[in-house]
């Protein structure tokens, strides 16, 4: 275990889960270091919530083991796992006041009254919900409800926080505010956090490492920047980034000892590209992010080409330009000042160092 010096907090080993004949999680392995913020990111239905429920002990797993803080908790009840969980729909007990909501778990555990009061005071101070303590959940706004839901996990003094899309019921502004608050909370508490989302901005901003999932399998587990810049396969490359990465289907060819990517009459030299494995000539997919392409100002890009402008979409700080490069559709993102004006034909340039090449068949990175 490479995280050994830091201590492993949650270790999921060979975990499988089936609902009847449907296999939702497939021999999944994941080690989360002490104090790490892991984000599970993936499209709807890929098994993120299912994985989180397995860690929480709310679902019986079909195979494998789960360790939390070095203890095998595979057969433990949720309350004995040292986890707190925050749900998308808040799941506050509607008939209890905020205070009773926070204290419910502690009362179930039979903690003494003064200890309960102390913990509620601390949690409500951290989350700034002191004025709300005597209200019922129905009398709270969405953001306040989610804060109380976080507080319910906070008072239990757990080692691991599990978040299942806690912000997706909130409007955009509140979401970005609470996102920052969760980040601050993590910095303050230094707890291990596993956070499910399908919002890539949340994933990029919050995570120490992101686990990108698809079909019950973790595709890539890496730091956000690595995932963004060096996606291991075409799915990860296409899932992250908005607008999405440009993909061009073509061929990988070797010419006088230099590798090129060719499509129709366009030839992209790959001398600056760092290959993952020994390349072989044949069909391949070339991917480059819209912001890694620039409108050519004559400086020495390794690759330049002429293209025709189709649509220009101003987005405030940036502008998205839809182009045709030969027969290929292509998007370019530039800052607003650099938007081409009244030009149908432009010339673009990029450095293939920033690009990603994928196997046409398997989709894995070359």
């Amino acid at each position: 275990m490479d995280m050994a010096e830091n201590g492993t907090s949650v270790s999921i080993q060979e975990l499988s889960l089936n609902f009847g004949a449907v296999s939702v999680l497939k021999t999944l392995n994941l080690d989360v270091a002490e104090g790490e913020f892991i984000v599970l990111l993936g499209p709807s239905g890929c098994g993120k919530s299912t994985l989180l429920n397995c860690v929480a002990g709310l679902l019986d797993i079909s195979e494998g083991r789960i360790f939390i803080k070095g203890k095998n908790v595979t057969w433990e009840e949720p309350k004995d796992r040292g986890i707190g969980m925050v749900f998308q729909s808040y799941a506050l007990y509607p008939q209890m006041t905020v205070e009773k909501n926070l204290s419910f778990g502690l009362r179930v555990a039979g903690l003494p009254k003064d200890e309960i009061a102390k913990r509620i005071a601390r949690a409500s101070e951290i989350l700034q919900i002191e004025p709300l303590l005597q209200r019922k959940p129905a009398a709270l706004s969405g953001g306040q409800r989610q804060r109380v839901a976080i507080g319910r996990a906070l008072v239990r003094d757990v080692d691991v926080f599990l978040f299942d899309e806690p912000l997706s019921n909130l409007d955009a502004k509140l979401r970005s505010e609470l996102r920052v608050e969760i980040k601050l909370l993590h910095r303050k508490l230094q707890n291990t956090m596993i956070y499910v989302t399908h919002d890539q901005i949340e994933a990029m901003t919050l995570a120490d490492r992101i686990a990108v999932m698809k079909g019950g399998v973790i595709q890539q587990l890496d730091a956000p920047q690595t995932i963004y810049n060096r996606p291991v396969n075409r799915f990860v490359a296409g899932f992250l980034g908005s607008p999405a990465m440009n993909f061009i289907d073509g061929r990988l060819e070797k010419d006088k000892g230099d590798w090129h990517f060719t499509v129709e009459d366009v030839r992209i030299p790959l001398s600056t590209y760092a290959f993952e494995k020994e390349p072989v000539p044949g069909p391949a997919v070339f991917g480059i992010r819209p912001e890694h392409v620039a409108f050519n100002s004559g400086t020495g890009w390794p690759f330049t080409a002429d293209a025709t402008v189709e649509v220009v979409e101003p987005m405030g700080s940036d502008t998205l330009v839809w182009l045709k490069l030969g027969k290929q559709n292509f998007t370019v993102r530039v800052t607003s000042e650099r938007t081409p004006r009244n030009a149908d034909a432009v010339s673009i340039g990029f450095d293939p160092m920033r690009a990603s090449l994928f196997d046409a068949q398997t989709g894995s990175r070359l």
Partner: protein
Amino acid sequence: MTAAQLTAQELTDRAGLVPFGPKPRRTSAGRIGIYAFLIVASLFFLIPVYIMIVTSLKGMPEIRLGHLFNFPVEPTFQPWADAWLHACTGRDCNGLSPGFYNSVKITVPSVAISIICASINGYALTFWPYKGANLLFGLLVFGAFVPYQVVIYPLIIGLSSVGLFATLPGIIIVHTIFGMPILTLLFRNFYAALPVELFKAARVDGAGFWRIFFSIMLPMSVPITVVAVILQVTGIWNDFLFGIVFAGRSNWPMTVQLNNIVNTTTGVREYNVNMAATILTAAVPLIIYFVSGRWFVRGIAAGAVKG
């Protein structure tokens, strides 16, 4: 001059010629039809009630005059007192009151026990599915459609073999059993409509089967419980068949007593007493409806719609 014109303009606006302010309500033919139908329908049901009330307040000589719709000339509550205390069923002349107390003794425990069992059933079926839970639920739903008459004979045999036939516990058990399918269905659907994350959150908080039921589910179940109470009280209070078969002579409910009073063959037919007795018997479900009608509708909307 201009001011006058402006006001004139405003006046036409206000007169509803130009759209301005609240949209004027117009009575359409369809609306008149609806009201006409409602009035006729309520008359259809209220006229018998009116006749019952006025008849119960008349003395026998006045009834013999045959003016069914007339208001009582000398209103008297004697028939009501007779119905309650002195009306005869065969040899006993104690009125309806023993039947009333019997009905209370049957209804209260039956309603309470059946609702407690059904809410726990519905909760367990929704949140703690065990092996065969779906099969059990299917059987329960099927049970809701079994005609009562079919199972009476086997039930008599079963109850008498354990010595409960024709006893108060016997009739309570029968009512509880027959209330179970529909009540369990009601509660299960109510709980199934709650977000399952609520249950998960309570599990994470360390609460077990009973703690979650009592601390979280039960406080939320008020609307559906009201629906269940109304269903059961009216059903059990109005029941005649089970009462006459399973309760035993000394525990006969009010409906059976009423039948016996009305069908007594000795002496003159005291229509005023019969009417009063009928109203008295119907009073309990009526009061329940009036008191809790609002809750009833709310509960139906909250729980019974989503399957």
